[in-house]
């Protein structure tokens, strides 16, 4: 029982990171019908630029309070990621709107690898230790179940950000313009919406969320490196599909569900398969879920059928 509770908690933590990243995928997909393959790399750039900021700050002023350091890291990471996302939309994706269907996707893969390579040049190939500024000493709310302050803050911060995003999309003028653009570019522009600006903003917003997610991800595991964005990116995409891509609530739900399935599955896979498979197969869950959802319920948990759209 303790194991189950523990795995559910772990799943919630990882799941809320997935959910944040999934929002970026789902917003871009909703508006452009494009899988922004490079979104995971934005997360990586967020984590690494925060790392550079924090470690250089520690070098200059070693006795700053940790929370201030973290805030400074985020303050650099978020604009950096926003710039990266803005540039990739402006330089690559915008010119491919309306191109044959494989072209934008191949470009997105290229952008993803380009960002990884650039990160490899800037930050090197090695794993960096990410300073764990929020305590990782586990608390024990229930006997045998552990949760650390950093995990608690991950859950809280992502809940807060998700709430903020949903409010933005549903309640503000900008949000209305985004929804209108998602519905129909041409009609939206006839109504006076600057479609290009809205699309760029969507990318930038998603990137800001990914930057925060990257910092949280790195704080939780205590490491950062140039290829760290790939797996979370792929899983967040799975989460977006699982929830019903193009749907904000779906992305959040999908993220949490995927996190839970992964954590609980990894905890029990050895018992279920009679020791044949062990927890090193954890990454398989996401892919199997992705395949299964697309085949049996392409609409996702809450969403419209989109798998024919290409």
């Amino acid at each position, binding site marked *: 029982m303790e194991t189950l509770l523990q795995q559910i908690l772990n799943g919630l933590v990882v799941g809320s990171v997935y959910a944040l990243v999934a929002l970026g995928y789902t917003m871009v997909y909703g508006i452009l019908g494009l899988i922004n393959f490079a979104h995971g790399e934005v997360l990586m750039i967020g984590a690494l630029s925060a790392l550079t900021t924090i470690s250089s700050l520690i070098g200059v002023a070693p006795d700053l309070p940790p929370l201030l350091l973290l805030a400074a890291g985020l303050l650099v990471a978020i604009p950096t990621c926003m710039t990266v996302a803005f540039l990739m939309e402006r330089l690559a994706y915008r010119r491919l709107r309306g191109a044959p269907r*494989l072209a934008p996707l191949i470009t997105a893969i290229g952008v993803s690898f380009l960002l990884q390579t650039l990160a490899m040049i800037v930050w090197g190939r090695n794993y960096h230790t990410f300073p764990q500024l929020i305590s990782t000493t586990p608390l024990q709310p229930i006997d045998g179940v552990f949760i650390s302050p950093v995990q608690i803050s991950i859950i809280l911060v992502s809940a807060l950000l998700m709430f903020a995003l949903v409010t933005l999309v549903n309640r503000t003028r900008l949000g209305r313009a985004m929804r209108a653009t998602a519905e129909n570019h041409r009609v939206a522009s006839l109504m006076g919406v600057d479609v290009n600006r809205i699309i760029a903003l969507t990318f930038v917003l998603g990137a800001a969320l990914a930057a925060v997610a990257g910092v949280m991800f790195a704080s939780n595991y205590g490491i950062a490196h140039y290829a760290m964005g790939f797996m979370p990116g792929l899983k967040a995409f799975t989460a977006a599909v699982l929830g019903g891509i193009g749907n904000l609530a779906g992305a959040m739900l999908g993220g949490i569900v995927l996190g839970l399935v992964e954590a609980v599955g990894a905890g029990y896979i050895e018992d279920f398969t009679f020791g044949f498979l062990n927890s090193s197969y954890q990454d*398989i869950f996401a892919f199997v879920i*992705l395949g299964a959802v697309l085949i049996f319920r392409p609409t996702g948990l809450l969403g419209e059928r989109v798998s024919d759209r290409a």
Partner: protein
Amino acid sequence: MNELAELVPYLGKHKPRAARALVILLALVAPLIAIMFGRTWVRVLDFALLYMMLALGLNLVVGYAGLLDLGYIAFYAVGAYTWAFLASPHFAEAFPALAAGLGAADGIHLPFWLVLPVGAALAAMAGIILGFPVLRLRGDYLAIVTLGFGEIVRIFMNNLNYPVNITNGPQGINLLDSMNLFGWDLARSIKLWGVKIDSLFFYYYFFLLCVVGSILFIQRLQISRIGRAWAAMRDDELAAKAIGINIRNMKLLAFALGATFGGVAGGLFGAFQGFVSPESFSLMESIAVLVMVVFGGMGNIAGAIAGALILTALPEILRHIALPIQQALFGQVLLDPEVLRMLLYSLAMILMMLLRPGGLIPAHARYSRPEFIAAGEARA
């Protein structure tokens, strides 16, 4: 071999026969030129030929049938691991008791001609296994699911050393048998009239033979009923269905045939390299083959060949040119060869899509060339 003429930029258009002859001549003497610069360059050519086979196979799936497959390297892996399992001491090391009982105390060592078809068949089966669930998916979704498939295969390769040791995990399998054609071991250099002929040459010409065979096969396939059905399906699936093309079978056939090429190339790779490990079958490799197809020109034999040749040779050339330049300019190596290779591939992918989406040698619509139209009218 008309397609080959397109490989030569100017001549190909005006004097296709001369261009074709030139390509064939170059293919035959290439290793002789390469050896003057060192043995490594012959090795690079050998790998270029393997990548050509992969690119030709992936081109069937992506270029002809229009199914973007990001897990293609998995089939290459199936071929290579089949060779590794059936032609190495691994079996005896992993299952000593069973091996001794079967009288195979030094492992299984099946002959080349037996293992290659087995590997190809297993790869084709893997292709169908992948193909069935993704029949209904199109475009970007298909791409992501195939990527997932490739990753699953890689995860299994990494972890299937426990509880039953099949792949030997991340270390991979060593000491694979070399290729043996009717008692002639390709890995052994021969001394002929006092001249030592390097084994890399034998591999080169054997691989060349395989590539030529593939080209001939694909060329016939392209203009066959199947090739035309694929083109129809790629251009408009609904319309293709409406004129009576069996989309399901055509898609499965594309996956299976593409996978077969991957499986054969994988078997050749295993025998050539002498060891296999999951590292050789990462997503980066899938992407690399895709870049070759995209860069060269999708749906086009000459494109796949040119893409594979250029993108295998260029990183090696860069390695020899860019490193000394960096050394001279900055006094240190800022961009190592692996980074240069990735940079080259990702930029090739982005810039090609933005500037020349058809690739280096764009596929032209069939029957649009005057001689085709004339032939069609004459037949009618």
